[in-house]
């Protein structure tokens, strides 16, 4: 059953297809790209039917040995955490391709970059082998670099390099971490492998770190920093304003998925693999998250450029996600995981709309706008809805995610995991969100029209409305029926939580899903039971 491989590599095949077409046939190139992305989305929908939310095991999985000498295997699988991210990726890729039909130079390369990005992101969400993950993780760099560098704004060169070098600098140390993890596994079991299922099995039984406890925090941070850079979290965020401000509009849309690779990685690797180091690092991580929330919001309020506002607002929003994840409470992690999706949707629709404005006016600076509500009422309404979801108004998806994430954080603080003050501040971030969002809305839409060019602005066309409308549907769906999305996650989240907080021997492990299911009903686990777990190849 090669479903996941198909999903992952369909876009790459699409790239090959594109290069069979002549550069001159821009129109057909665009259509091909669109078809490919839509096809990928449809195929990815099949996963929904195959997926069984009742278990946290990796499903639909494929496991083939790849580089046997180095213990690298081609292991794909999907669980509650990655399920929605995969669908989000394929879905938003369609949007990204569809919204860049107006590109006119080097179209083939452009579409190729989009599709390559899609493949890479899908791969990193699906891969269960550390090295495989890293490979896909890094494969996103070059296409994004090209997107910014060729089709970007005036300061593109600098922004592109900054993006690539910054993220590369983060991840190269993760590579060191990955390798040392594999080496530890080798030392523990005598068998070299980077398969997280097997590694986590050792972790669960407390064997892996048994004689490397002092190394654990360092390896943990090697992972964490790489992923925090991608997320981005507070001190590592400075690449994102330049990137958003300079890249073509499809860039931020896809990078609003790409940043999820960071939080996803934290959920998938940093929590289950470093349970002993985790508790001591949580306060620092939460502090970073909260600083990110407030700091991002404050800086977003005074940016002169809509896209920069969006950049800092993602810093703020991802802060909520991180807070939820690192609260290490079911509610919080569920909220965090859900907030990932919400941010994906919300940020995308905002970028989409800003993009439409950019296509019409060629600028996104506030000083060039004001009072355009009169010209573009529909646009204004859609923007308003997206904005409300982004500032977490109840009834929109943003509220559910933030509410749960913060509640989880509060619980953790109430249990003295970290200072209560952090949460009090974090909640205030919601107020600040209102500040910068409303201020942006006011500066763009309210008042009299000052610029002559804006007098002639046309409202959205049918297709544009449709494109944005689909996303709006999800805003309310997520807001009014969040269980649709949270139910399938719940088991995986619970498992991840147990993996990262339980004592050695009491930690569940992916390979022992059914044993754990059994344990749930039977008496509480004894260490012996955990130790006796059969190691599956």
């Amino acid at each position: 059953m090669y479903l996941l491989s198909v999903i992952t590599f369909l876009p790459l095949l699409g790239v090959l297809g594109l290069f069979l077409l002549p550069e001159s046939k821009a129109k057909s190139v665009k259509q091909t790209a669109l078809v490919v992305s839509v096809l990928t989305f449809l195929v990815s929908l099949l996963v929904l039917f195959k997926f069984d939310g009742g278990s946290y095991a990796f499903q639909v999985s494929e496991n083939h040995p790849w580089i046997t000498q180095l213990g690298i295997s081609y292991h794909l699988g999907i669980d509650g955490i990655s399920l929605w991210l995969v669908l989000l990726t394929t879905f938003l890729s369609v949007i990204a391709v569809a919204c860049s039909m107006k590109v006119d130079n080097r179209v083939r390369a452009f579409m190729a970059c989009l599709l390559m990005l899609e493949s890479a992101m899908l791969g990193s969400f699906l891969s269960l082998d550390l090295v495989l993950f890293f490979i896909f993780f890094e494969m996103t760099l070059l296409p994004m670099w090209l997107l910014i560098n060729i089709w970007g704004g005036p300061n593109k060169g600098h922004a592109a390099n900054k993006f690539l070098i910054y993220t590369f600098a983060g991840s190269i140390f993760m590579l060191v971490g990955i390798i040392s993890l594999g080496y530890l596994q080798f030392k523990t079991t005598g068998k070299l492998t980077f398969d997280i299922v097997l590694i986590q099995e050792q972790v669960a039984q407390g064997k892996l770190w048994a004689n490397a406890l002092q190394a654990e925090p360092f390896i943990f941070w090697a992972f964490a920093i790489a992923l925090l850079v991608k997320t981005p979290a507070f001190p590592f965020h400075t690449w994102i304003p330049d990137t958003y401000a300079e890249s073509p509009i499809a860039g931020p849309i896809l990078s609003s998925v790409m940043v999820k690779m960071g939080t996803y990685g934290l959920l998938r690797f940093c929590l289950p693999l470093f349970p002993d180091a985790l508790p001591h690092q949580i306060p620092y991580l939460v502090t970073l998250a909260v600083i990110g929330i407030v700091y991002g919001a404050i800086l977003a309020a005074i940016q002169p450029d809509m896209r920069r506002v969006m950049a800092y607002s993602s810093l703020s929003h991802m802060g909520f996600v991180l807070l939820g994840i690192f609260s290490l409470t079911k509610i919080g992690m569920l909220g965090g995981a859900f907030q990932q999706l919400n941010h994906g949707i919300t940020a995308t629709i905002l970028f989409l709309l800003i993009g439409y404005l950019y296509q019409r006016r060629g600028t996104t600076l506030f000083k060039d706008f004001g009072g355009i509500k009169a010209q573009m009422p529909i646009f204004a309404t859609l923007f308003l809805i997206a904005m409300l979801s982004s500032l977490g108004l109840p009834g929109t998806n943003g509220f559910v995610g933030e509410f749960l994430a913060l509640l989880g954080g509060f619980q953790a603080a109430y249990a003295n995991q970290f200072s209560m003050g952090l949460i009090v501040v974090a909640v205030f971030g919601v107020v600040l969100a209102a500040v910068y969002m409303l201020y942006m809305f006011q500066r763009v839409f309210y008042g009299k029209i000052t610029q002559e060019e804006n007098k002639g602005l046309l409202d959205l066309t049918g297709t544009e409305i449709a494109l944005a409308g689909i996303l709006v549907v999800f805003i309310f769906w997520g807001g009014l029926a969040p269980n649709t999305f949270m139910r399938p996650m719940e088991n995986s989240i619970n498992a991840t939580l147990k993996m990262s907080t339980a004592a050695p021997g009491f930690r569940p492990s992916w390979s022992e899903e059914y044993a754990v299911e059994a344990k749930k009903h039977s008496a509480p686990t004894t260490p012996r039971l955990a130790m006796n777990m059969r190691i599956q190849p």
Partner: protein
Amino acid sequence: MDKAFHFAIPSIEWAALLPILIVALTGIVTFVVEMFRPKNDNNLIVGISIGGLIVAGFALFMQMEQPSYATAGDLMQRDAFGTAMQWILILGSALTILFSESYLREKRIPFGEFYPLVLWSTVGAMIMATTTSLLMIFLGLEILSVSLYVMAGMSRSEEKSEESALKYFLLGAFASGFLLYGIAFVYGATGSLDLDFVGAIWSHRTEATKPMMLIGLAMMLIGLGFKSSLVPFHQWTPDVYQGSPTNVTAFMATVSKVGAFAALYRVLTAFALMGEYWIPVLTVVAILTMFVGNFAALVQKDVKRILGYSSVANAGYVLIALLAHAKDYRLGNNTIIYFLLSYTLMTAGAFAIVSLVAKNGKEGTRLEDLNGMWRRSPFAAVALLVCMASLIGIPPTAGFVGKFLIFFDALRTDQMLLAIVLALNSVISVYYYLAIARAAFVTDSQESETRMVKMTPGLASVCTICVAGIFGIALFYSPVATFFAAK
């Protein structure tokens, strides 16, 4: 043996010797052909050379399954490492020859003698790679170098070319002087030119021999470090790389470097026993090499110069693997072979594409001279992008796997410091590799036609081989590794 010095004719395993002989003879044949052919049409010569190299490559299969042994009076050592190295060397010179013709023609220096020289100097490298005798290492080194001196000065109308030739020659001779002196001391201590004795002698060393061997090693390190451009013996590298004709530079960067590292590998393996003395030194050298190479490359404007410094940096990376090998003899072999192979592919490809910029006897190798390549010859631009990605180490390219292996070896031999330095340096290196990629693939320029030639079949084939190789040996690492690790 009744009387002294009545040595018997040594037995010679032709299977082991064959590849070297074939290459050498191909050189002679091409030389002869060159004499009797009309000028300005070297395609036949190119054909013969490539053919010869391919045959030599196949000849290597004959020794695939053989065990390790020494032949030709113990002056020639056949083992898996040597075989692998010969393959890489043959690949390197084949790639060089493939794209040379069009380049030399554009540059108006279509010497037919170029090809025999390339082949012979490949022979030199092959000799270095397949011996444990210091004599043969020295000879091979000289065969390699002398022909390189000539080729470096091949473009005689260019002051830069001549200058680079003289620099290379004088410094090279200087360095080989040290190498020889070192060999002399090792010979004095061990009474033999064969590295196999080193270990034995060291294990019962005397007050007299101990310093002789150490200092001898230090001197040999200068000779070999010069060839493989380790700091502080690297300074010729950027200058010579920039001055010499691009195809010669490619040859230097691939064949001569691989040969030098093969020799270094032999020597350090032999001296592994006294690692406690020299491993710290080489660790420092490795760190310096990486940092100097990368930092200096940051501020360069000339593509060939950038690649020169990058080859300095890469020497540092390989040195890590060598150190790992010296610490634990089971490690490092694969890494060195794989890294050098990938490095050959990337570098040869890069220089081949840079050679596009030569037209009508003029050649500009500044970054901005690459602008608009994506318009003039898109495939070359893409190939360059791939090569750069691989040099950076972005997966799924050979460069990534190579770095991965080095990290792995470094960590398995507890050389955390080197691992971290390597990580830092790969970050630094990103900047200038991207600069090249950007110049070729991103920046546009209307008059690129005046500067650049279009793709030629030879060049196209080089690009294809390199791109295919860069992805191939990464995605199919297992078969490749098993192939090279074979006896």
